[in-house]
């Protein structure tokens, strides 16, 4: 069948259309990386007076081509003046803490929801699943009030706790799928050996949930790495600012200096892209796991 398909002329048309889509997909990113390495003259175009003829010569902007002079200094500016390095570390600290909390809390809840027998556990499951639909806007004013009363605004915790709470429903949803695949015989064997629920959870179940950590972790990571609304409102000091807010702040700083903006955008994009190239199948699978079971 495969051979027949290869020579079908309609497939060539499909490939051409798909390649056009690939171009549309990649070109803005290529453009971003190239303008991050150009100077303003190249980006905006410029004019000069030719000394031999005395005429004004217009040099049009270089939109599509590679940079003529590679301006690596733009990256220095973005890192130093734009402070992207600090924001990068902040984002990393917040994301990893959120992953840790989400994984622990959702594994424990999932254990109680699926391995322990009690009345109302189905209702409790539905209750947690409400979180999939609740928009984060619901929490803004009350959480802002609570954080400001507890003097927690402008700390890492101001982002970590709300992010973990909003990642929880998806964490539980994914964990239920994974925990369901672990055979109940293991629990029974451990129980007969005299293990209590805590020992069963930590010694038997948790070690077998390693693949779930990756899936929950990836999903959670991308949610908080890219989040803007909470990050803008709950943190105003540059010390704890995360990458998306840092990028947003570039509005005021260099509205006319394109190169450093491009550099900042590239710095903020590159890590996720590298991780994606290394783990593309895994990342896609965690998005599928999150949606298909919902």
């Amino acid at each position: 069948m495969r051979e027949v398909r290869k020579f079908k002329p309609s497939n060539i048309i499909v490939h051409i259309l798909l390649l056009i889509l690939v171009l549309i997909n990649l070109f803005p990113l290529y453009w971003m990386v190239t303008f991050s390495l150009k100077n303003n003259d190249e980006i905006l175009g410029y004019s000069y007076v030719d000394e031999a003829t005395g005429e004004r010569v217009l040099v049009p902007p270089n939109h599509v081509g590679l940079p003529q002079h590679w301006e690596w200094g733009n990256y220095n500016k973005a890192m130093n003046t734009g402070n992207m390095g600090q924001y990068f570390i902040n984002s990393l600290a917040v994301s990893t803490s959120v992953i840790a909390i989400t994984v622990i809390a959702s594994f424990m809840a999932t254990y109680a929801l699926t391995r322990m027998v009690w009345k109302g556990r189905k209702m409790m499951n539905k209750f947690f699943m409400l979180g999939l639909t609740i928009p984060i806007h619901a929490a803004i004013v009350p959480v802002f009030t609570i954080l400001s009363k507890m003097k927690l605004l402008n700390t890492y915790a101001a982002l970590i706790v709300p992010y973990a709470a909003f990642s929880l429903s998806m964490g539980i949803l994914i964990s239920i799928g994974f925990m369901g695949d672990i055979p109940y015989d293991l629990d029974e064997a451990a129980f007969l050996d005299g293990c209590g629920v805590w020992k069963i959870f930590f010694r038997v179940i948790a070690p077998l949930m390693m693949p779930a950590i990756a899936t929950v972790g990836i999903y959670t990571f991308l949610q908080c790495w890219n989040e803007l609304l909470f990050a803008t409102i709950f943190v105003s000091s540059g010390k704890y600012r995360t990458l998306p807010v840092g990028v947003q702040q570039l509005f005021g700083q260099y509205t006319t200096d394109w190169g450093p903006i491009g550099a900042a955008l590239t710095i903020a994009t590159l890590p996720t892209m590298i991780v994606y190239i290394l783990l593309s199948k895994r990342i896609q699978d965690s998005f599928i796991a999150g949606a298909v079971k919902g």
Partner: protein
Amino acid sequence: MKRTFTYKLNIFLFLLPALILFIGILIAPIIMSAYYSFHEFNLVANTDMEYVGLNNYRILFSSMLTNPNTGKLYANSMYLGDALAHSLILAALSTFIQLPLALIIALKLSKGIRGERAYLSIFFMPVLISTVIIGRLWMNIYDPGQAGLLNAGLRALGIDKWLFPAITSRITSSKLPFTGQWTGFRETALLAAFIPILWQYVGYHMLLMYAGIKGVPADLLEAAQLDGCTEGQVNRFIIIPYIKPILKVCVIFAVTGSLKSFDLIYALMKDTSRAELPSTLMYKLLFLHQRYGLGSTVAVILIVLCFLFAMLISLAFRDKGAKVA
């Protein structure tokens, strides 16, 4: 007796971390927001809560939003009706343009075309980029000056010569001529916001649909082929009904995503009022004008709408499924 008690205590302890987070950050704030929506107060000036009944709801839906200090309307009229209309337009564009496009690509890719994994991975990539970065990048693409990529492309192809006057003639919100300020006019701003959304999320829906199509049992497809079904018939009568649950998830994501959308508009435009969405309106009310009661009211309306649409979409899909069966 003691054992059952320990057992129950353990259940509670296992649920405790999740319950604290979930109730503390999601459930209690919803109730608090609902309470706030009947009040007006200022967190910065630390004023007392003043009970105003349904007044916040009335104000938001009547475009009578005035500045309490001057008694006049705010400079950029803030009307929830417009913001809701904008987000519903975005929802409709997402559902009727983005999802069919995603479905067509997913159907083509899932039939074993060469390099399907590479195509899939490339199309999905923008999903992982922060929406703020995409907004900021597209702001540069739309730039009305010399450097803007879109206008440079239109100029190079000579399209601007007839397209710009044509747009100018349709603009009623301003007397300025349209010279490529895509985010600068009410008539073009929303569409300018939709293009990056389409660009970013079409791959997401495509991936979900692709995974669903790959889950269709092979014998079902073989049987259809043996019966002489064309590709179009297989798509229409076997694959699409089979992946209905996933299509439902996609529609819910597209619609609730449009209602909640904030990052892109906020990053794409310096002045969001030309494509105001409920969340950007809420942000302005809260942090520009310190109208915390009104902001909470917008939040409550958003929560209700998200649940309402999720329910309606589920119902719509359930009915059709029953008819097919």
